[in-house]
């Protein structure tokens, strides 16, 4: 099955890096959408269904924490697994994002295989295969 993913990060080079890692990971990526903050991500999600959202936390306008909160309050968007990709690796932050509904957490810097494994695990959790 080809995956449709949304990458949310205010850095265009980081979005390009994540996109490249996904494309080289062996996962079948059918569509790779991008947004530069949470607000833009919500607009993209109004018109596009995706299988997973990969989001940074520290972004202008609307950060990843607020994006996750809005998605978890939405009847449909709450079904989409969210994987957090952030430089913040403090235990308190990781726990907060997982409590808000994130299905996985990857800290930058990350090895390409780590991102793939965590994305696959997040999808498996949602699909009930784990």
């Amino acid at each position, binding site marked *: 099955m080809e995956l449709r993913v949304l990458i949310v990060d*205010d*850095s*265009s*080079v*980081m979005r*390009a*890096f994540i996109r*490249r890692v996904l494309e080289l990971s062996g996962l079948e990526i059918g569509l790779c959408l991008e947004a530069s903050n949470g607000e833009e991500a919500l607009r993209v999600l109004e018109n596009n269904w995706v299988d997973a959202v990969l989001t940074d936390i*520290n972004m*202008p306008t609307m950060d990843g924490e607020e994006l996750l909160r809005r998605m978890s309050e939405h009847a449909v968007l709450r079904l989409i697994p969210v994987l957090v990709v*952030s*430089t*913040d*690796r*403090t*235990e*308190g*932050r990781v726990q907060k994002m997982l409590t808000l509904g994130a299905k996985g957490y990857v*800290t*930058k*810097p*990350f*090895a390409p295989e780590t991102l793939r494994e965590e994305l696959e695990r997040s999808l498996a959790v949602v699909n009930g295969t784990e």
Partner: protein
Amino acid sequence: MEPNEIQVGLAAAVEEVLETMCFTSVLASGEGAAPAGMGAGHRTASVSERTSAGSEETVPDAAARSCTAELHFEGNPSGGCRVSVPLKLARVVGAGFLGSEEMEVSDSQAEEVVCELANMICGSVLSRLESEETFRITHPQLVPPERGAGFENAAINRWFDLGDGILTVTLELQPAI
């Protein structure tokens, strides 16, 4: 926190970021400023340009221009982190990050990669030094050349020879109030 402990954490953080995200290895590193003449990209060449007023002034050439990104963090401790590289090295590192050729990396992309490096290095070094603490980290910003290289408060410096040039990291840690 001992200065030596910070240096070790800083070295490990930079090596981790460069190896996993830019597929670049550190050839050598050390405390303080890089030894004179080290690193192919660490040149100070300049060219003379005639200004509109007719006078001649010396400006750095493109290879000698540096790119510096800085961010600040609040927590225990608070402080700042600054990453500086020659623009030529920024393109090399940017090419590794983006999986493209050096010539395909624009100045703005190279600068944005340096900002991301600063972000990741700062996050990595803080977690190594204070893993239990939660920090609020600002967005990395490019530092105009006229701002100078240092922080106001006492800072820790370390250089990294990447073969194509020297990357320097300055970490400022403010004492807890």
